[in-house]
């Protein structure tokens, strides 16, 4: 589960208890390399392609994808970060706080934006991200890359690049870190 979910999910102070590791660090690395190839294949030459990682879980995945694209295609792909807190549809329903300020230092007008997040769940974060993105220019196209697609979509949103499709129960949590991907539960202390 993304950092975003963990810090906003109450009860406060609950801890993630992993049950099973579903991807090792090297599995994640291999998935990144494959997704980089897929992005390069679909966007020939990678011209006008930019990566935008969602705060906070998507940022490190976006940076790893950029490094892999540099290795695969020799292209320097700019990376931005996006925080969607002010665009969420649950403001006023539960505590919503920004994780870090958005940092997009390039104009998105005419660009192909690959949105990057660690876990795709209900799709509501991506809906908010699409609205937020519009404030930084009119992108030619927006694609979505996620490390884990855990299902349970509540909106008509689908990813273009997926590290792993992982069937889950709604009450489970998926944790993506430098050590890989784990499935577990959030337990209140």
């Amino acid at each position, binding site marked *: 589960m993304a950092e975003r979910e963990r810090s906003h*999910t*109450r009860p*406060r102070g609950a801890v993630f208890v992993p049950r099973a590791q579903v991807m090792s660090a090297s599995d994640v690395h291999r998935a990144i390399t494959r997704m980089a190839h897929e992005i390069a294949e679909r966007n020939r030459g990678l011209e006008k392609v930019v990566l935008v990682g969602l705060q906070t879980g998507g940022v490190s995945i976006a940076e790893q994808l950029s490094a892999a694209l540099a290795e695969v295609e020799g292209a320097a792909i700019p990376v931005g970060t996006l925080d969607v807190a002010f665009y969420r549809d*649950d*403001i006023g329903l*539960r505590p*919503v706080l*920004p994780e*870090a300020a958005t*940092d997009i230092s390039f104009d998105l007008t005419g660009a192909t934006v690959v949105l990057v997040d660690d876990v795709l769940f209900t799709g509501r974060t991506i809906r908010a991200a699409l609205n937020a993105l519009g404030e930084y220019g009119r992108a030619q196209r927006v694609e979505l890359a996620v490390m884990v697609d855990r299902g349970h979509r509540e909106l008509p949103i689908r990813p273009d690049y997926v590290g792993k499709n992982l069937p889950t129960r709604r009450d489970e949590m998926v944790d993506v870190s430098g050590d890989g991907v784990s499935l577990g539960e959030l337990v209140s202390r």
Partner: protein
Amino acid sequence: MSPFPANLLSMDDLDTEGIAEVLAVADSFVEVGRRANPKVPALRGRTVATLFFEDSTRTRMSFETAAKRMSADVLSFAAGSSSLKKGESLRDTVETIEAIGIDAVIIRHASSGVPARVAGWVDHCSVINAGDGWHQHPTQALLDLYTVRQALGGGDDGLARFVGLQVLIVGDIRHSRVARSQVTGYAALGAEVTLVAPATLLPPSLEGWPIAGVSHRLDDVLEKADVVSLLRVQSERGSGAFVPTLREYTAGFGLTGRRAAMLQPEAVILHPGPIVRGVEIASDVAELPASLITEQVSNGVAVRMAVLFLLLGQGPVEGAHGG
């Protein structure tokens, strides 16, 4: 982490963590302010009212801009043209405003304690103190802290550098709500505050004030200062009667060119505005790079957006779990 308070009446409502939270959220709103379209839908459908019973341009405009940039609707209440003129009591006015369905009221009043009284009368609406008498002006202190944190490098590192920071608050402490909020805020972050004023412009008692010291001579303390925070001589609150002449005040406590030259190279100058050039600050000193007066004004909008967002955007603590 304790939940954010329901009202912001005084800096005492926020603990160190609460202050840090406001400053961190303000970072995001500073970024929003830099965009071509500096508006977010965060408070769509919320209504805030400004109730100003005392003159103000910057604070009122700053709050109204903050609310509008978050897509809230803003009602602007001018005491001079209201039913108060017809004899309606403050309590009835406030209850009327609540019945209309306002989510937050932003109050400025010449009497200390009015926002706290109003907070006791309303059930469903948040109250923000935009300055009450000599008591408190919490958002001014927060925007000062934000501006200093920015000058210290910003983020958590900037925040950590408040510890041991030498802060001078210079001027009419006695009549200043800003000073009272500033002292609490700086002390909460670990800074050491020295009050600098003639004895007549200090409050009768400083018992319980979290300060490092008091000085009656600005020249003695300027050299060690990291932050010099000036206050206006508030003639409308009668502070003119507490000093023989404004010229004498300037001679002893004004930040003149000679005094600005005594400051450390990294020291910064703040002033809550409106500045009276030639009295508490020399005109050319206000234009020095060390003077952060315009930064304070622009940061003020972001900090007030953060306060409004934290008060109105959070919902119940036991929320559903989304994704």
